[in-house]
């Protein structure tokens, strides 16, 4: 297979759906099945593809994913077939925030948040991150770009630029950043056509943007 397969990965609630949305806005075709519908935790949608979970058993769809992007939680990266070439945009977020976001999502769904297990969850997640990063380093067929979620909130253009460069250029960086930077409309044609502003940010992302703005004025 000639084309590179692009993957957005990371732990849950680290901004993987947001990055998928940015890549879609930038012009990449996303591989999704829309089974899981948008909700308050991800008003713009989850950008998931169920077949990713069975990639070890069935990789037949991967041929068609060349030049496109799909989302895959970091635990599943070990199952990636070795006979493809991948570029992985790996989202990272401060562990405490990530755990808090997971708890909020479970609360909204009326599920047990398991808050009392936070310390153990943190330990397990940190162990996983260390192991997966080591594993990725040793894979010649996998290139990785690590993107910080909070930095993306604070400076969407910088992250968009970095991702575009990593993926070989050709993405519309302005529209990628515009997913977050809705106070600005640099892409006039998109604004006039009504395309811009159609995506919704999830609550966490909105709160992060507000925090970044308030911090820049000396609050928080």
């Amino acid at each position, binding site marked *: 297979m000639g084309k590179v397969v692009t993957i957005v990965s990371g732990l849950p609630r680290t901004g993987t759906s947001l990055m998928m949305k940015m890549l879609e806005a930038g012009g990449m075709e996303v591989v999704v099945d829309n089974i899981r519908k948008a909700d308050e935790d991800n008003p713009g949608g989850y950008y998931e593809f169920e077949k990713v979970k069975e990639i070890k058993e069935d990789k037949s769809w991967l041929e068609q994913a060349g030049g496109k992007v799909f989302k895959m939680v970091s635990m599943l990266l070990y199952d990636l077939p070795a006979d493809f070439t991948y570029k992985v945009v790996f989202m990272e977020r401060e562990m405490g925030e990530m755990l*808090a976001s997971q708890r909020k999502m479970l609360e909204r769904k009326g599920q047990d948040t398991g808050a009392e297990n936070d310390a153990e969850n943190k330990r397990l997640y940190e162990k996983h991150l260390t192991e997966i990063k080591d594993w990725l380093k040793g894979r010649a067929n996998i290139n990785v770009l690590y993107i910080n979620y909070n930095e993306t909130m604070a400076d969407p253009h910088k992250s968009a630029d970095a991702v575009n460069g990593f993926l070989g250029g050709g993405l519309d960086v302005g529209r990628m950043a515009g997913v977050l930077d809705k106070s600005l409309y640099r892409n006039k044609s998109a604004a006039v056509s009504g395309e811009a502003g159609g995506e919704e940010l999830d609550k966490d992302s909105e709160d992060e943007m*507000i925090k970044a703005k308030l911090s820049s004025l000396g609050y928080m």
Partner: protein
Amino acid sequence: MENNPTKAAFLGLDGTPYTLALDLMERGVMPNLKALLSEGTLRRMDTVMPEVSSVAWTTFMTGVNPGRHGIFGFMELKPGYEMYFPNFSHMKARTLWDRLGESGRSSVVINVPSTYPARPLKGAMTAGFVALDLKKATYPDSVYQYLSGMGYRIDVDTVKARQNVDFLVDDLKLTLARRREAILHFMDNEPWDLFLGVVTETDRLHHYLWDAYADPSHRLHGFFFDYYREIDSLVGEFADRLKDRHPGVPLLIMSDHGFGALEWQVNINFWLKENGYLKLSKEPAQSWEDIGPGTRAFALDPSRVYINLKGKYKRGEVGPEEYGQLCDELARGLMSIEVDGRKVLKAVYKKDEIYSGPCMENAPDLVLLSNPGFDLKGAISRDVLNEKGFLTGMHTQDDAMLYIGMTDMPDKAGERKPSILDVPPTLCRFLAIDGGEMEGTPLV
């Protein structure tokens, strides 16, 4: 000039102090504002406490104190200590334009902070800080279409500005230019009985470049004054268009708070922790959710102290029987804080001394008023009492400005120092509408 008693025009200059306005007029930087003094009066004005834009502009737009409108700051804590950011949908009182709309008359509301997300009104609006999405900040859709087409900017990108002050200079110019264009466009092209347009770039300029104003050797000293020449140009253009196209309509110009030099940031949560009132479940704390058992009080930006009450908060510690005594004890302790041999606080107010109304349950239990130069901070994880930050200007409570072009209406304020609460009933007087439960006194 005959007064038109049913319309009013208002220009807000966020954070422009009265004393700065006087200085700039004296230096010849604001000749248009100076010229307006022959047609009205300029006064020094007190703003609300805490002296922050979300509270001040909400007080202005409703005419009631925070105990009635429910906005006490940019952020609040839920009972489990999770932070949330109250917005326009949390605000509990009627706005000036709601009242006017009830009588079938129109308002244009441009960039008033704390009006996001925009709500339908009789007229047109675009919300101000902390608006995130232009589509959700505007009503009706024609406002969005116009603003998105002309490259309107809701705010200066202060997140980027923090990294690069030269970027800030360019962004201040661009944002003001677009703001001016939008304000003048809607003034001329949208029917209104009440026009409210606010410039927030002044606040950003002061936060980052107050030292440029104060220090003649600062490389941006000239830029500061040039920026205010642009502000004055807008004041002049706005006033001229008002006279030409809406003769007899009074002009008000107001700031929501003043500004002064920031010498020290003072971390109130650090003091509370050091004195045993605040216990953190981990250090450094990652968020206010790390407020631990045994906590009796915590602080939020700016200047607010909350008692960790049983029944109100998940790990509430203080019962009603201890409340009064704890407030007194905290007030005494906080008033004793000194930095560089100077008292940090001018006063500590209990909530029922400064607020009243149905939102009192959410009011901070103590509100602190600092002495000049001390910027009170509510960060949860600071490990020093006082420090220097990246900002050089801080808000002040007693140095806001208010200009009323009264035409032939008598000045009723006399020697009394006006409060921001007096401005909305003054507008109601000009608009010939009943201010209802508004708490201030008309100044005309």
